[in-house]
């Protein structure tokens, strides 16, 4: 079956979840590794974490943003390939992007002409 690419946008609520302990980080590292291994065929681009701040650009010019006070911020992105939205959903549902309380992943199919 042909695969389509999906953009995954991770959002989190700043200040939620607290600081993980070193032992929890060990666990997260192990879980992350297992997830990456399991879905290695689906992960096209691991993407990365996005730094805070930035610019919003229009034809008029550029302004600072997004603001850190926002209730939800985009924290990272990745691109996965999958046979269907269901399969892409499964990759994201098991991903580190949804582990922290208050975080979510939005999945959008990248349309190909």
């Amino acid at each position: 079956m042909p695969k389509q690419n999906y953009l995954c946008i991770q959002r989190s609520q700043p200040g939620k979840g607290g600081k993980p302990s070193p032992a929890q980080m060990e666990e997260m590292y192990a879980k992350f590794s297992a997830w990456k291994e399991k879905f290695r065929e689906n992960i096209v681009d691991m993407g990365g974490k996005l730094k805070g701040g930035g610019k919003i650009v229009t034809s008029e010019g550029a302004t600072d943003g997004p603001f850190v006070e926002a209730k939800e911020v985009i924290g990272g992105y990745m691109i996965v390939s999958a046979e269907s939205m269901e399969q892409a959903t499964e990759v994201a549902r098991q991903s580190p992007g949804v582990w922290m309380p208050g975080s979510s992943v939005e999945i959008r199919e990248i349309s190909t002409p």
Partner: protein
Amino acid sequence: MDARVKRRDQRDQHSLTTPKLAEHFFRHEYGRLVATLSRRVGVQYIEAVEDAVQSALMTALENWTIAGLPDNPSAWLFRVAHNHLMGELRQRTARRRILEQNAKEDIGPPENGPEIFLAGEVRDDLLRMLFVCCDEAIPVESQLVLALKTLCGFGIREIALRLFTSEANVYKRLGRALGRLRKHPTLHGDLTGDQYASRLPAVTKILYLLFTEGYLSSHAEMAIRRELCDEAIRLAAILAEHPVGQAPETFALLALMHLHAARIAARRDGSGGLLLLEEQNRELWDRQRIQVGLEWLAKSAQGDSFSRYHAEAGIAAEHCLAPSFQETRWDRVAECYSMLERIAPSAIHKLNRAVAVAEWQGPAAGLGVLEGFEPPTWLAGSYLWAAVLADLHRRCGKTQTAKRYRDVAFESAPTPAVKALLQRRLRTGSPG
């Protein structure tokens, strides 16, 4: 193919495998970094140090999972934590201008990693931090929490779980310790040789406590109990390698830890129930570890001192060496208990001696040890006291007295596992 080259290749392919890190890597790196950095900038900055280390580990977690491991993860972490800490301290300087006056020599320019990670120095830093934790002005229970937090890298919730106490209590204990470290200027530089020598007993005591917290804990999860034992052994081994810790007490402590740890897996049955010594499958004992324990015990015998650790290691060694429960050299066990009673008087040691004497010379002789002895209230009300007396009386044929103690023992059993064990022992145990 060379492992490193192979790893590089994998990284190039979108780094889709995340290489394995050593067991407890994050926790142990936490301990190392806190020890090293707080030696460099002064223990009074320990909270800033811990923040910097925490954030370096977080940065590592985020980067390594995506980009793969750097060539030297420890050096990478040190650099990130160090930069973070320097940034924070510089900001404080800007606000308060203390750093300039006080700490110019202490804080060198940010250095690049690997050369500072000579194994010897890291071990020295950990050891130094252990002695810093064992300040006599800090109550023992706060020392224990401080060591678990800074040296073993456990979080507050994890410490509370392991010590069977509340998170609020852990915070309180930790707060006391940190308050002391913040205030005391003698701790800012290196400890003196005298301080090392005078704190050694407190250091061995804290390691002993750490070990027994794990070994005696009734925590359901074996892994959690094992972890505390492993941490205690890890730190005690570092202590024994260094001149400041090379004393017969340290060697005896290591002996007793190994001789107990070798048998820990056999103490529970398949479903997590407690097993009596006589019920344990001795095949499950870790022979290699027993050998290590016996070597430390031999080493501890050089010199004149005989500590409680010597006595306890001696008892453990007798059990490890006995081919069966019946063939245990109970005379020697009883002798070790009476030495233990002399060095560290406690009613529990007398009770244990009575049990050993009963195996050696019969139940009547065992009861003889306890004759005329008034147990302290904490012991009289405990299942241990009642269970031993129930057992010895039953074996002497004094059924009525035995029954009375047995009822008390059942009632005061702290956990279902202990209760199950008592029911087995006191109903069906082999007669006299």
